[in-house]
Every structure is written in structure tokens, then in C-alpha cells.
């Protein structure tokens, strides 16, 4: 495929909501009441909260699908509150639950919509469609002519994301995009989104009412209570270890320690090497390595270097000159973007207590086993503990200083220190 200069992507722009309020006509109380929020460029912010608390309303005010009753919206340096909404929306990606794909258009036509509206040349649009399909992990040749109803729910959702990203918008709004798919597919889609975001650095505002989802993909999470009042707006780590009040800790739910595993990814821990062989290698050399090498097990990779079979020394007897019957098929793999919790799950269910780590196209990268996990988790908890102690220390010092100032009659508000963990 020829290199196209178009492939350079726009990274995110900041979003600022200032005193944003929405009062639906006929309602007594506003659905969104005086929200102030700043989302940094390239950041993934999750709005999470109970049903009806105003998440969707807040999100839809950003692209003015819902006109605010008062307040301002700024994207980048621009105040977009009074801009032509149609033009504004073409620069903001929008993905919703149930994908929102148009059923009478093919996958390619759906993805091409925004670029076409922006007046891109036909060849550029065509290239872009292929590129986007590739980006979301769908084979362009196979999928571009299909209609939405010929796709699975997960595939539809991928196309929905591809369409939202097609015109390369700096900002992406997602309203429970994975709400309607089964848990396993949802998990995959979340991993994909994380991978995409690693490549693209968009500013993403993502609505969900699933706190685990929020922890998994958010750089920061805004926990909202009714009328979109912000209960806490902080990193997942901080919310897990320091929920600001009962409402937030109620939302975090039980098992905060286990959830901590969701915050670290396989990419962040050291994978271990494992001897491999390719299915293309001559049989003799594979047998030879198993028989006389230091290892009594090999991971056999297929033509695309994807994990295929575990091959043990004992399997050789049954092989009889062919690999077809020897070894056990690889049942489960994790990607580099999988969380340690996923990895733990896979390791626990594997009877030899290890799982292969794969890259973007499923190719083998290394191995995670129980020992790796144990070591990493212990380091993680240790670091958390130190962090908490340090935080406590800082608070103590601060309090001591305040008491001292108070005793000297010099107390004014200047003693308070802003910071990530500080709360009103």
C-alpha cells in the first residue's frame, strides 16, 4: 500500500465547560446544573454516575446536540457555544450505543460520510475508509461492502468508532458505546479503544455507568451525582484509594484492591521469554530442540507468528512425523493492553499457569506467568502503600502548620495547598 501523507493524525484539543446548565422545557429542576470541567488535550475523561444523573445531557451539550440553557463551551482556544452546530459536529467524533450505523449504507459508505461532507477528494476518502477499517481491526477487503446487519454487535461498534474517527477529529464523544454488547466483546472493544488512544492521542469524553469500564479506560474519571454535580474528578487510582465521600465509595463498590489490578496493563510489566518454534521450521529441528534443548516445552507459532500450540517433550512420541496431532492448542492469549486482572484470570484458568502475550495482529511477544504477576502486584501494592503514607505525611505537615499558624493568630486560607488528592 502506498504511503499517504494524510495518515498523520490530529491529536486532541482541550475541552472546557464553564457554568454549563441545561433546563429542559417543562422540567422543574435543571438536568445539568452549573457544571465546570476542564478536559486536557489528549486526555480520556469518563463521565460516570447513576442513570438519569445527566451524563448524556452533559456530553451532548459539547457537540450542541442539546443546546445549553446557559454557560460556555470551549474547545481548544475557541468558544464554540455560538458556532454553527452542523459545522461544529463535523469536527467532533460521535459514537453512541448500538453503533448508530445507517442500515441502508454499507460499512464503507457509513465511514465515508463525514469526510465526504467535508469535501475530501474521492481517492482520499477511499484510502481513509480502508485505513480506518484497518485501524479498528477489521479486514477492509472483507468488510467494506457489508451492510450493518451483516455484522456482529462488536463489529458494528468498531465500525461506529471508525466512522467517528474518519475525519480525524481532535475530540471524540462516546455515549455508552459498548453498553449493548456482551461482556467479552465489551472487554475486547475496551482494549481496542485503549490501543487506538495510544496511537491517536485524541481528547475523549466517554459516558458509562459501568465503573469498571471507567477505571479501565479513563485517564481521569468524573463521578457525577444527580444534575451532573461532580462528586469527584480525579485519576482512577485516586478515586479507588481515596474516594471523596460515601456516594463515591458506594459507586466504586466492593473489591477496590482487586480493581487495582485493572489499572495496570500487561505492557507495563516485564514479560518473560519462552522458547518458540515456527510451524514453518523443519520438523526435525523442532524435535531436536525439544529432545536435547534445556526446555521441555515449546510454543509453536503459526505462519503469522501467532501462538498456535504448546508442544511438550512428551508429545513427540505421538507426533509421528506430523504436528497435526501433537501438542495442545493455545486456548487463550492476552494483548499488551490487557489489564493485569485479565492476565491473572487467564493465568488462573491455564493449567500450566501462564499465558502468551500478543501484539496488535495477534503475533507472539512474550509470556506472563504466575511469578511475574505476583512480583508485579506486590510492587504495585508496595508503591500504593508508600504513596498513601506520603500523602498522610503531607496532610499531617499541613495540619501541623495550620495549627501553628492558628496558634500564632495568623491563620488565613493561604495555608491550604492545592493538589491531586485535595478535596473540599
Amino acid at each position: 500500500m502506498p504511503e499517504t501523507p494524510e495518515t498523520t493524525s490530529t491529536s486532541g484539543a482541550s475541552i472546557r465547560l464553564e457554568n454549563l446548565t441545561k433546563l429542559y422545557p417543562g422540567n422543574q429542576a435543571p438536568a445539568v446544573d452549573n457544571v465546570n470541567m476542564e478536559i486536557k488535550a489528549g486526555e480520556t475523561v469518563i463521565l460516570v454516575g447513576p442513570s438519569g444523573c445527566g451524563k448524556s445531557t452533559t456530553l451532548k451539550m459539547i457537540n450542541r446536540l442539546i443546546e445549553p440553557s446557559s454557560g460556555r463551551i470551549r474547545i481548544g482556544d475557541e468558544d464554540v457555544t455560538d458556532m454553527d452546530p452542523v459545522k461544529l459536529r463535523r469536527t467532533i467524533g460521535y459514537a453512541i450505543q448500538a453503533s448508530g450505523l445507517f442500515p441502508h449504507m454499507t460499512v464503507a459508505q457509513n465511514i465515508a460520510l463525514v469526510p465526504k461532507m467535508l469535501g475530501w477528494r474521492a481517492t482520499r476518502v477511499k484510502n481513509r475508509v480502508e485505513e480506518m477499517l484497518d485501524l479498528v481491526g477489521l479486514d477492509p477487503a472483507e468488510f467494506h461492502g457489508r451492510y450493518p446487519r451483516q455484522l456482529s454487535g462488536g463489529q458494528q461498534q468498531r465500525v461506529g468508532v471508525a466512522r467517528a474517527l474518519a475525519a480525524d477529529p481532535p475530540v471524540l464523544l462516546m455515549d455508552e458505546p459498548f453498553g449493548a454488547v456482551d461482556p467479552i466483546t465489551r472487554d475486547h472493544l475496551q482494549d481496542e479503544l485503549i490501543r487506538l488512544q495510544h496511537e491517536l492521542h485524541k481528547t475523549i469524553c466517554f459516558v458509562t455507568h459501568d465503573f469498571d469500564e471507567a477505571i479501565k479506560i479513563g485517564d481521569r474519571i468524573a463521578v457525577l451525582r444527580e444534575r451532573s454535580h461532580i462528586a469527584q474528578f480525579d485519576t482512577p487510582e485516586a478515586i479507588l484509594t481515596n474516594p471523596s465521600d460515601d456516594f463515591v465509595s458506594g459507586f466504586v463498590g466492593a473489591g477496590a484492591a482487586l480493581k487495582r489490578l485493572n489499572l495496570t496493563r500487561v505492557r507495563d510489566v516485564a514479560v518473560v521469554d519462552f522458547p518458540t518454534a515456527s510451524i514453518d521450521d523443519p520438523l526435525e529441528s523442532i524435535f531436536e530442540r525439544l529432545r536435547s534443548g534445556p526446555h521441555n516445552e515449546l510454543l509453536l507459532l503459526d505462519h503469522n507468528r501467532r501462538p498456535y500450540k504448546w508442544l511438550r517433550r512428551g508429545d513427540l512420541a505421538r507426533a509421528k512425523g506430523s504436528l497435526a496431532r501433537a501438542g495442545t492448542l493455545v486456548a487463550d492469549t492476552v494483548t499488551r493492553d490487557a489489564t493485569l486482572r485479565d492476565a491473572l484470570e487467564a493465568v488462573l484458568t491455564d493449567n500450566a499457569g501462564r499465558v502468551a502475550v500478543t501484539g496488535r495482529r495477534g503475533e507472539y511477544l512474550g509470556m506472563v506467568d504466575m511469578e511475574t504477576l505476583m512480583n508485579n502486584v506486590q510492587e504495585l501494592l508496595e508503591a500504593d502503600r508508600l504513596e498513601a503514607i506520603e500523602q498522610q505525611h503531607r496532610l499531617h505537615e499541613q495540619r501541623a502548620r495550620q495549627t501553628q499558624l492558628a496558634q500564632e493568630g495568623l491563620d488565613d486560607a493561604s495555608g491550604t495547598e492545592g493538589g491531586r488528592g485535595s478535596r473540599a
Partner: protein
Amino acid sequence: MSFWEYVGTRHAQLLTDTYQHASAVFQCMVLATLLGVFIAVMTYRSEWAGNLATTSTATILTIPSLALIGLLIPIVGLGVPPTVIALTLYGLLPVVRNAIVGLRGVDPDLVDAANGIGMSRAARLFRVELPLAWPPILTGIRVATQMLMGIAAIAAFASGPGLGNEIFRGIASLGSANSLNQVLSGTLGIAVLALLFDAAYVLIGRLTISRGIRA
């Protein structure tokens, strides 16, 4: 004279009548479709306007066609004008009703998505809402066409074109040698035309309804 001998000797006249009958129905149907879809597009968003459109087009349908044509003659004269007006008015109801139902039936999530990706109102209407509402609209057109086939025969009463002339001539000369043949040929001609039109609509459906939403 047997029926087939009659058809053999009069086939030139019969063909002309058949052609004119088909042509009148077709043209009036095109008019009714354009007008009907337009009315639906203007009214479907509002509860009362949509209902008003459906009710008023339904009211037209309750007027007997003979009476309506009779009422039109003093206003627009004889011949083609009263035929076209009457047929178009009668063709409206199924189109308007089905178009409103179809447009209102478009999944609100899709409308939200269309707005959300930055479609203008017109783009949303022409690229999303109308294509999705097209199958029911086409059904409406089909039903209307069947109805117009019969009503068009009445147009002969106002000296309009079509197979109605055969039927009326037959009725006028009741008792004469060919009267039954005349009525029969006109009626059969209309039935055959109706079948042909229906086949054409099946084909049009195949060609114009996206494979993505075809049942």
C-alpha cells in the same frame, strides 16, 4: 362475435385506450407521490400537522369518485384536467399516510447519529430518513396505484382517456351485440394493467431499496 374476435378487430383502439389508461395512472401517481411525500415531510415532525394531513387526505377518499369528477367538470371542464386532478387526489392518501408512518418510524438513535456526525437537516432527510422510510412509501404507492386503476375508468364519464371508454360505451349500448364484449375487454384490460404495474413495483423495490434494509 366472440370476445376474441372482438378483440381482434378492435385491437388498435384497445391498445390506444390501454396505453392512455396506463399513462394517466402513471403520471398521476408520480404527481401524487411527489406531493404526498412533500406533505409528509412538511408535517411528520408535528403531532397535529401530521394527523391533519392524514385525516384530510382520508376525507378525500370518502367522496365517491363519480361525484368528485362530476364536481370538477364545472370548474375545470371536460377531458384530461378533471381526470388528473381526481386521480392525483385519490392517490395521495396511501402515500401521505405511509410516508408519515415511515418517517416517524425511523429509529431516533439514527436521527441522533445523523445530527451528531454533522448532517444538515436536508442531508439527514435525503440521506437517512427518506431512504429508511422508502419501503413503506413504496408500499403506499403500490396500494394507491391499484386503487387508481379502477378510479381511472370512471374518468371516461368526464370524457377522460383510458379503458373506461370501452366500459362506458358497453354500458351505454346495453343489449346490443358487442356491449358485453366492450365491458369485458375494458375490465380485463384494467386487470392486466394492474398486474403489470405490480410487477413493475416489485422490480422498482429491488432496484431502489438498499440491500441493507430489504426484508
